[in-house]
């Protein structure tokens, strides 16, 4: 195979990959109540409508609380686990790490209903913190994958040198290891925040009467008249995700530079 047809194929592939997302702002700024071509003209009305929807503000606050908590919890769990997976040998390592990474491939519906059934059985009402529990479970594998990258890029001899020079283990971790993996931690926080912000199924099953942004959006999809507003909200969500990702990517690259390595791939 030669480069040119492959390049054309890859280009088309990217085009199709982005086609739906490009439509989003088109309709969000479109001055028409029906989501259809031809476009009618430019308007900011739909964004303005977002401002005076109190239910939306509650949902936004819920989403932010959940996403921040998830990012912190998942990154903390991921930090320990990634350190263990890259630095130490221990019995059943493959099995244990594989099990922790399992939510990555398990259908979210399965995770969500099993959590829900247990909560209902114990008699706990679903709410913000039950969503946080679920989101932490599914975000931890991503945190581990990102942080494993940072830890394995680090030169072990730096830590050994610190210990040889009389630093304690904790001191070594604080002064040597942590600064080197900080970019990875920031990237992991941002990615877990994004996952939680966009996650729908677990939030939908476990939200009770505290909807998150995607759950609120799902409710709005039933009303054709609200669709342009949905498009405006969607535009903001997608833009936010893309901005957070770009910051995360910048930090990831900074981490690679600190470790003195050349960039070879993306996340995961």
């Amino acid at each position: 195979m030669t480069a040119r047809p492959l390049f054309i194929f890859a280009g088309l592939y990217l085009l199709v990959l982005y086609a739906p997302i490009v439509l989003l702002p088109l309709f969000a700024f479109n001055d028409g109540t029906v989501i259809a071509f031809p476009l009618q003209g430019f308007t900011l009305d739909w964004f303005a409508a977002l401002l005076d929807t109190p239910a939306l503000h509650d949902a936004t606050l819920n989403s932010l609380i959940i996403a921040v908590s998830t990012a912190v919890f998942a990154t903390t769990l991921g930090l320990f686990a990634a350190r263990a997976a890259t630095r130490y040998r221990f019995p059943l390592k493959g099995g244990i790490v594989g099990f922790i990474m399992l939510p990555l491939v398990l259908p979210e519906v399965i995770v969500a209903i099993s959590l829900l059934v247990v909560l209902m059985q114990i008699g706990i009402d679903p709410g913000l913190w039950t969503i946080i529990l679920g989101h932490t479970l599914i975000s931890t594998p991503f945190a581990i994958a990102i942080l494993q990258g940072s830890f394995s890029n680090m030169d072990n001899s730096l830590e050994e040198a610190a210990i040889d020079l009389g630093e304690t283990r904790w001191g070594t971790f604080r002064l040597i290891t942590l600064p080197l993996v900080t970019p990875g931690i920031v990237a992991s926080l941002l990615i877990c925040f994004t996952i939680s912000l966009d996650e729908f199924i677990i939030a939908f099953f476990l939200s009770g009467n505290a909807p998150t942004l995607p759950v609120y959006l799902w409710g709005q999809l039933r009303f054709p008249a609200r669709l342009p507003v949905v498009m405006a909200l969607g535009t903001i969500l997608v833009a936010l995700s893309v901005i957070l990702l770009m910051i995360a990517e910048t930090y990831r690259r900074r981490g690679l530079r600190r470790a003195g390595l050349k960039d070879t791939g993306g996340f995961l």
Partner: protein
Amino acid sequence: MGDRRPVNALSKALRSDAGRGLTLVSPALIYALLLLAAPLAVIVLFSFWTQNFLTIERVFTLDNYRTALTDPLYATLMQRSISIAGMVTAVTVILAFPVAYYISFYVRPERKSLWLFLITIPFWTSYLIRVFLWRVILAFDGPVNGTLMGFGVIDQPLPWLLYNATAVVITLAHAFAPFAILPIFVALEKIDRALLEASRDLGESPAMTFLRVTLPLAMPGVLAAVLIVFIPTVGDYVTPRLVGGSGGTMIANMIYAQIFDLNDRPMGATLAVLAMTIVALTLIWAISRVRLWLWLGGRISGRARLLVLAAPVAEIALIGWVIGQGPAIFGLIPALLALAGAVLVSSAAILFSVPRGRFAV
């Protein structure tokens, strides 16, 4: 440090390499045990109970399984979920391979991460919104119909674009595209380029080099892609709900309906357990048979090869017969348990005895 202190066995064990590793991994492990393993065990338990109006009858029974396996509605949904997921997997992996190949072999090293970043961005944006956008795109008055009518290809909008299984396949294939590219890319990156040069130097054509060196070495990535796409798509809820209509409903929608609309949690749990079991059996069956097939194919030549080709067809026919006729002859639960057991044992036997071979499946 601390050499002079009296050390007991425990603190010594904790300070060994294995102890430190286990201590560090334990928070995430305990979290996953409490919030994943325990709830999964609970739904397995639930699947053997029954709902009696508002209370749950805690008597062990196979009634749910009997209903789930005999009611044609559940069988249809399960079959449709598997075949939609199968199609999505085939489409995503086949389309992803050339892209991963291009990025790995033709993009300059310093540009690779940019390409990967571009491919992963859509994946990190809201899944719900992406699926909903497909509903807009495929809609009666949407851009696809609009464009086709604008160019005069069709006179009136195509009604079959939306609310069917095809729409579900298109939407899911789009949503899971990055999942397929990344593992294949990683596998391709690991290939030692010297092997390809060696193959060319020894006189193989580019096409044969690709078939006999690149493709086999990329197979672990392809297999990972298959798993990562297939398993979550079987259990997808949002896409069938938004673009599937009644002809594209899948098993996850039914699980949701059982739990929330019909308030029958044990039945929902049963369907979830069945779905997971069937997915696991299907995958293990497919992987073991592909390995056996490739192994035999490499060993046997001539007419006997036709036999190798015929074997999977015969086996699929046999499985179909057992599913169709077995329950009437041997009883429902015994027949299906025997089938599951046979699949498991034969697959395990193949996986343990047949070597991975060139294709590393």
